[in-house]
């Protein structure tokens, strides 16, 4: 006859050997290993201040016959702490989703129940298959004056806990970050970078609910970002890039009028166009680009032959080698 038994961390646990008398001779095992008699009080097994490592299968056998008299699975855990609940509309005006998690694990199974109340009406939040701990709701009405009240209750064998969030329809609007951010150098323009991106695919109606964007960029070697806010369009040309420096660029989105900014998009890297040297010198200058901090922003010398996009170190040498050959050949012509 097998059970599951849930106990709190730090509790004292007494296990009885089924219907056996207190003074019966029994042997207890934990996960198949015999338990020392010092833990026994008669036929009862006493576990003091249990910890997580003591979870497992406990079995009780009659002394001489070695019949299995009782078996239980002990799961040591904790009652749930107050859960963390967050609701957000990344697909306005379709609806919103709520997601939650426990701040600390309980080590035993938990069940979650979510309720959404809008004014006097109770709405159903449909649980998502993936990710778990998430549900979504469709708006029935738009531009509501009444707040939404979402309560999440988490329950397990050792207790329950809950949390509530209340919000206005407009307050939780936060789009997903822009997608497909692309940054390219502009030919013949050593200080320009052309950036383009797309509306997040989760935003259902950019025509009626347009997004505005925030672009930030900096050269890799600097910590200070530069910002541009754009109320229109999904592209922008940076015109003040430092020549020859690799840039990191990100974009964020926001509904034109309501809600908050999205998280930053995936970062893209780009280096502005640089001019190919017009005069090859007789000296092949193989200068390696360094990713360590450089204090000046002067463009690299025009006699530099190697491709600036090349990787640091031996790679640069390999690329420069071919250029060096060309240079040597050219040099020979002049002898």
């Amino acid at each position, binding site marked *: 006859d097998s059970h599951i038994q849930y106990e709190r961390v730090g509790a004292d646990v007494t296990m009885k050997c089924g219907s056996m008398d207190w003074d019966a001779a029994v042997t207890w095992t934990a996960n198949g290993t015999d338990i020392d008699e010092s833990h026994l009080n008669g036929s009862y097994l006493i576990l003091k201040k249990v910890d997580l490592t003591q979870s497992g299968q406990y079995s009780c056998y009659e002394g001489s016959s070695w019949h299995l008299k009782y078996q239980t699975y002990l799961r040591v855990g904790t009652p749930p702490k107050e859960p963390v609940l967050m609701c957000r509309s990344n697909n306005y005006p379709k609806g919103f989703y709520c997601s939650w998690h426990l701040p600390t694990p309980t080590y035993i199974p938990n069940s979650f129940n979510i309720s959404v109340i809008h004014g006097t009406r109770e709405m159903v939040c449909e649980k998502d298959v993936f990710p778990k701990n998430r549900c979504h709701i469709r708006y029935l*009405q*738009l*531009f509501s*004056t009444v707040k939404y009240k979402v309560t999440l209750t988490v329950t397990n064998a050792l207790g329950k806990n809950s949390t509530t969030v209340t919000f206005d329809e407009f307050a939780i609007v936060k789009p997903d970050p822009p997608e497909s951010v692309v940054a390219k150098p502009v030919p013949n323009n050593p200080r320009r970078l052309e950036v383009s991106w797309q509306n997040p695919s989760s935003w259902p109606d950019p025509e009626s609910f*347009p997004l505005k964007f925030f672009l930030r960029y900096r050269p890799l070697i600097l910590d200070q970002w530069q910002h541009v806010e754009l109320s229109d369009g999904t592209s922008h040309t940076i015109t003040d890039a430092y020549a020859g420096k690799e840039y990191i660029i990100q974009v964020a989105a926001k509904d034109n*009028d309501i809600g908050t900014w999205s998280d930053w998009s995936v970062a893209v890297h780009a280096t502005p166009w640089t001019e190919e040297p017009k005069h090859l010198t007789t000296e092949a200058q193989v200068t390696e680009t360094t990713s360590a901090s450089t204090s000046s922003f002067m463009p690299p010398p025009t006699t530099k032959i190697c491709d600036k996009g090349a990787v640091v170190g031996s790679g640069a040498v390999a690329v420069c080698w071919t250029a060096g050959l060309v240079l040597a050949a050219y040099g020979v012509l002049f002898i």
Partner: protein
Amino acid sequence: GDSWGIFTFLCAALCNLPALPALNCTEELGAGQSIQKTYDLTRYLEHQLRTLAGTYLNYLGPPFNEPDFNPPRLARVERVPSATVDLDLWRGLTDNARLAANYRAYSRLLCYLRALDGQAGTAELRHRLGHFCSSLQGLVLSIAGVMSSLGYPLPAGPPAPPGTPVASNDFLKKMDDFWLLKELQTWLWRSAKDFNRLKKKVPPAVVTLRLEARGF
């Protein structure tokens, strides 16, 4: 070339006809710009309202100024048409219906806000309310301007407000004030979206001579 010449002649001729004082070609050409101006006004008002509402709710005192205050809507007669609307219905509104809904709502809201102004406690509050009411009146006029430039008739003026009984006690009166501000805030959020849609549908350079509407 020639067609522009004819057009300007027609425009001048029509604009000078005394029987049609309302027809104004420059208004027609600027329908797109007036929509933009109206949109900008709603954003400005929404911003102003944040400060005004904060001050007014503090004046009303707790629980009205608590951020989590979420009272049930009492079954009193709705004084102001609500901004709340079914999504598909909202999408399907004609330009005329969309503008008319905004016009009616703000006309009523202006009335009630003016009434509020008369009773408000501190001088600072009265000053803020007065300033806001002027801006709100500007919005009503701006919407009217857009409607007339597109040839839509203005909705009939709002019925006299005292159709609803005055709140019987102090608390209920404060509740009314709370909901008035809430409704105003929601309308301003909605209008931004309404005028966004209108912006897209009425490009700035469109000129439509609504001769039929003028009884030609």
